[in-house]
């Protein structure tokens, strides 16, 4: 990849003109930030990998090829494939309504959207059990029609959607509010249709927010433990997601395998990095062509 200036906003500004802090301050800030991240993020990551590879590469690879591990990976991928698009669509729609219009009760709405963040994962799982469980509202009906929601895949997906519900919306709302609606209004005045305005004007402006939102939503989807644990039923090889499988392995004193599987989720962060870099590069290419 070429010069690492991609993220700098509206990069028509040559780097030299960019006002910044004195070099000493800059390096001090970088040092503080890195020290903090090392203590809180790099060390845990290193701990995961050091334990995953404790017994060597072959043990690591064997752990990953175990059938129960593979089925947990499959289930996690299915969950993410459904959860992320749904929450993305919701996030963009909600952000459009909230950021571009004023209406009474807006703060209430934003707060309600935030709510799933603050709901303890334990509760997020429990509420679906309270509704779909055998003692719940429609549990007996589901039972009679032999439809499984909780302790089966649909319950896992529902709980995951709940937990990752606000990610995209929350990422986009402040961004779109900061941008205002002048550009869209101009486009409409110039005769663009609503959809055209959205795709040509709004979308390019919020692409970073969308990318971050999707990345966060996806990462959290794959990593969610608490809520899924409540609705999963923990049936080996059937309703275990990757995080649940990690717990099972750990509880079987199979530490190396547990951390090997956990390291997959840590790799996710690194894949994220690649995706983001490619996206940035493509976008820059696009800008260059115009």
């Amino acid at each position: 990849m070429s010069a690492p200036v991609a993220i700098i906003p509206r990069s028509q500004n040559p780097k030299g003109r960019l006002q910044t802090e004195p070099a000493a301050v800059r390096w001090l800030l970088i040092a503080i930030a890195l020290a903090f991240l090392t203590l809180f993020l790099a060390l845990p990551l290193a701990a995961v990998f050091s334990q995953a590879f404790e017994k060597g590469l072959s043990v690591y690879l064997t752990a990953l090829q175990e059938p129960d591990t593979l089925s947990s990976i499959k289930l996690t991928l299915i969950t993410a494939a459904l959860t992320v698009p749904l929450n993305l669509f919701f996030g963009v729609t909600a952000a459009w309504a909230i950021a571009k219009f004023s209406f009474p009760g807006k703060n209430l709405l934003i707060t309600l959207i935030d709510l799933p963040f603050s709901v303890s994962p334990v509760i997020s799982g429990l509420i679906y059990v309270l509704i779909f469980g055998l003692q719940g509202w429609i549990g007996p009906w589901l039972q009679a029609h032999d439809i499984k929601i909780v302790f089966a895949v649909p319950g896992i997906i529902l709980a995951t959607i709940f937990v990752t519900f606000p990610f995209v919306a929350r990422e986009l709302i402040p961004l779109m509010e900061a941008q205002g609606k002048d550009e869209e209004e101009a486009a409409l005045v110039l005769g663009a249709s609503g959809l055209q305005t959205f795709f040509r004007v709004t979308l390019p402006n919020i692409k970073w927010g969308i990318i971050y939102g999707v990345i966060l939503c996806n990462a959290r989807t794959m990593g969610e433990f608490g809520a899924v644990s409540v609705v999963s039923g923990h049936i080996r090889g059937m309703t275990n997601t990757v995080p649940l499988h990690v717990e099972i392995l750990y509880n079987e004193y199979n530490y190396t395998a547990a951390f090997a599987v956990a390291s997959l989720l840590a790799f996710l962060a690194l894949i994220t990095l690649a995706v983001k870099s490619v996206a940035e590069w493509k976008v820059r290419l696009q800008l260059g062509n115009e």
Partner: protein
Amino acid sequence: MKTGFIANLLTAAFLTTSLAQGADITLLNVSYDPTRELYADFNNVFAAYWKGKTGDKVTIRQSHGGSGKQARAVIDGLEADVITLALAYDIDAIATKGQIKPGWQKELPHNSAPYTSTIVFLVRKGNPKKIKNWDDLVKPGVSVITPNPKTSGGARWNYLAAWAFALHQPGGNDAKAKEFVIKLLKNVPVLDSGARGSTNTFVQRGLGDVLLAWENEAFLALNELGPDKFDVVTPSESILAEPPVTVVDRVADKRGTRKVAEEYLKYLYTDEGQKIAAKHYYRPINTKIPTKLAKVKLYTIDKAFGGWQKAQKTHFADGGTFDQIYDVKK
């Protein structure tokens, strides 16, 4: 709407894959944490036996977790054909919801407990703190690891074992027993939520001088994690833990798996089943099966505490002795 639709689709897909074809039978055994290795072994042996006897292929799926949590999952609809939990109290809870017939505990011999266990101590190699019996646990400077009895079935056995020990000392009564347990809990630095969590705290974090554990868990930890690092100490007296098993009537009748489910549990009582239990450091109820475990004087929950319902109410329900101890301690 869209979610609901997709959920239905998935459910449909899920059901078609899990529907049994011909003589392919699946059973779901919902169990508590420490039985993983036991049932992994037993399921294979039973599947082979059943194939030989009937020609049907039976696949047994396992779900493991804290005993109370597993009971709740079944209450809320987890379709377990058989349930094998840590204490009768948890199965009673399912029975009160009508999913298991009352009197289930009389269905199989020996209170429906095909194997028993007890509570022992896991100490660091060489036993540097010289911990031999329950009264060594309350000495100052001894750090004891046990999970929280509110969230862990195993911890309830630990708590009651200590209580029963104090109760049976010369001049022992409930007040003295409570005194004893208070002293013991003062030596507990961490209360994990489950038995395996405590084992990990003791083994991985290096916390504590002694871990109170299921006998089978203690030996498993010893074998898995290093015979050179730990010793198992069996106290002179302890509590008789009877982990019961039963068929979940609602599910077995609905899925038509009653026969195989019953046979599955009965097989636990055969010499074959008993040998497997003994191999995994459970105490077989058939005394003819050889066991490596030390002789211990064991108190039963019924004699010492008047049964699980009463023990639960007195000690672990809100406001029970466990809560009283911590509310006073502050």
